[in-house]
């Protein structure tokens, strides 16, 4: 296989005199000779020297002479732009002489003649405070509209799935049950165990002064089962699975998978959102139950090893303090938190637009919003319980 000759690259003179600007005053004309290489390699040295060319006075016109230019590229155009800025500032006309063909080509390619004096890439000035405040309020309302509309859609589809169980994607639901529930058990268990341990230890410091060590068991059990168990589990799952829901769906949106589902006649929320929601609502209450058990085990360890309680005493005090209502109340709360986590995770995923950064933004936003809503709803539950 023999290759044919390639075309010769644009030619410049082979001699390479040192680059620079040579200024000559010819009558009333300031002649600036571009000498040697005026290109990427030399422009950073030449640009700071442009101002010195205009110290010669007086002159009426400026002429740029390319006769001694051996190499010129679009970085050379930067030098011309700088010269033209000075010429405009002084109000003097500018012309080019001895323009080689290579230079013409570069000037044409870069559209030098069409360049406006002010570069167009300065950042636009930000709007004033009032405009920004207005835009923020409008955005908040629009966002609230989207959130409520998505919530309505999710609820309707959930009811639809209850009436038509065959429409639920069982394989996906089981997969999400595993990733949201089973895979999260070790971390939820460990955190709850340590939390129970810390609570028991801290409370014992106070209760031991009154000889009320045994009430450490009551404190740990009540605090964990009705408050901290559901809230800690929900926060861990919001960070672990809620963000994953958002990131997965956002990525699918960016890679047009959601559009593909739509064109094939699937409802993307039913296809992607409902299995996640069902999985979360089934698994998070169960995880909460495990969290309660692990926390009580943590408290038991402190009680037995540091407070001279027997395991039987500790457990009987725990069971005496707890009512079935407390356990059910905690699981009911965690069911609501599960709904919030899956709702926000899916919503942020579906809202994502743009590139890779949108995926990160969706994940972060889902965690922040979920945790806020979990705390908000926990407060509402606390108020409601005070009336029960």
């Amino acid at each position, binding site marked *: 296989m023999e*290759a044919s000759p*390639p075309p010769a690259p644009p030619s410049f003179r082979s001699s390479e005199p040192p680059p620079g600007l040579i200024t000559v005053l010819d009558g009333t004309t300031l002649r600036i000779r571009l000498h040697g290489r005026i290109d990427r390699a030399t422009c950073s040295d030449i640009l700071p020297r442009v101002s010195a060319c205009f110290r010669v006075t007086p002159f009426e016109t400026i002429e740029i002479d390319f006769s001694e230019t051996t190499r010129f590229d679009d970085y050379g155009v930067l030098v011309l732009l700088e010269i033209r800025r000075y010429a405009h500032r002084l109000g003097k006309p500018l012309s080019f002489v001895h323009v080689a063909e290579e230079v013409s080509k570069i000037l044409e390619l870069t559209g030098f003649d069409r360049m406006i004096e002010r*570069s167009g890439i300065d950042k636009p000035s930000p709007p004033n405070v009032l405009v920004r405040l207005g835009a923020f309020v409008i955005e908040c309302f629009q966002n609230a509209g989207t959130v409520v509309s998505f919530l309505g859609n999710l609820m309707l589809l959930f009811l639809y799935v209850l009436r038509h169980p065959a429409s639920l994607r069982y394989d996906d639901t089981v997969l999400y049950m595993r990733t949201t529930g089973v895979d999260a058990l070790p971390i939820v268990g460990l955190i709850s165990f340590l939390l129970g341990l810390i609570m028991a230890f801290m409370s014992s410091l106070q209760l031991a002064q009154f000889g009320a060590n045994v009430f450490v068991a009551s404190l740990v059990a009540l605090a964990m089962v009705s408050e901290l168990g559901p809230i800690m589990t929900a926060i861990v799952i919001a960070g672990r699975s809620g963000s994953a829901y958002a990131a997965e769906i956002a990525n699918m949106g960016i890679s047009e998978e959601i559009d593909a589902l739509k064109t094939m006649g699937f409802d993307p929320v039913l296809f992607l959102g409902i299995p996640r929601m069902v999985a979360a609502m089934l698994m998070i209450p169960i995880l909460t139950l495990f969290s309660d058990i692990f926390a009580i085990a943590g408290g038991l360890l402190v009680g037995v090893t540091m407070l001279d309680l027997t395991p039987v005493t500790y457990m009987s005090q725990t069971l005496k303090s707890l009512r079935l209502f407390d356990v059910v109340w905690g699981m009911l709360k965690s069911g609501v938190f599960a709904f919030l986590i899956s709702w926000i995770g899916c919503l942020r995923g579906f809202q994502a637009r743009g590139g890779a950064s949108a995926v990160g933004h969706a994940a972060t936003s889902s965690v922040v919003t979920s945790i806020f809503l979990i705390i908000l709803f926990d407060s509402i539950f606390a108020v409601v319980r005070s009336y029960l």
Partner: protein
Amino acid sequence: MSVSPMQKTTPIIQVDRLSAGYGDTLILDGVSFSVFPGEIFIILGGSGCGKSTLLRHIIGLEIPRHGTIHIDGEPIPSEDGTVSSAVLQKIGVLFQSSGLIGSMTLAENVALPIRQYLHLQERSIRDMVSLKLRMVDLEGYEHHLPSQLSGGMKKRAGLARALALNPKILFLDEPSAGLDPITSAGIDRLILRINESMGTTMVIVTHELESIMTLAQRVIMLDKAARGIIAEGDPHRLKIESEHPIVRQFFHRQAGSETR
């Protein structure tokens, strides 16, 4: 026999007995060719024949199993397994999906290599970005994010970034893939203009026949079964003169056997 100008010129890219693959799969085996300064060189072939793999090896993103690659006399990769900063400044790459950083505006994307390698004042950088975007007809889109652009505009923006340092060699991976014929022809014209005005050597990976016939001064054709080059030369001559069945099928758009 007279010596052709090419034979007198030192190649700017020299690939010698390159073997490449992923895992247990050998995709290219003993590929050798040269690219000369200022030419538009096209790597063509059917899907899965290793065009993009070859390109990734030449630009140093993959390490060859065997063989050597030299750009402007320097080995790719160098002994420490990296590509030197000097070589990186000599090459510009337009990726198939443009490779623009999604969180940055077009101006910021184009300014990236300029800020990295040149010590210019902020005003000069802005001017240069403006010039580069003007070159690719994207004036006025400086503050747009890549996600706000069409496919053709993304390609042109990627081209502006690849051109930021006036590289000696421009590598373009499927520059007109997925574009309409008008946009595609526009990209081809732009490539020709840049080659003509700036003398940039172009190495293009494509299987778009129209682009091949418009742009290429010399091509190599890769084949999946041969794991290497099955034809080399002027595409117009290959189209008429080649006796190789796959080359004929390719240039005459004839269906071939998928089971090859």
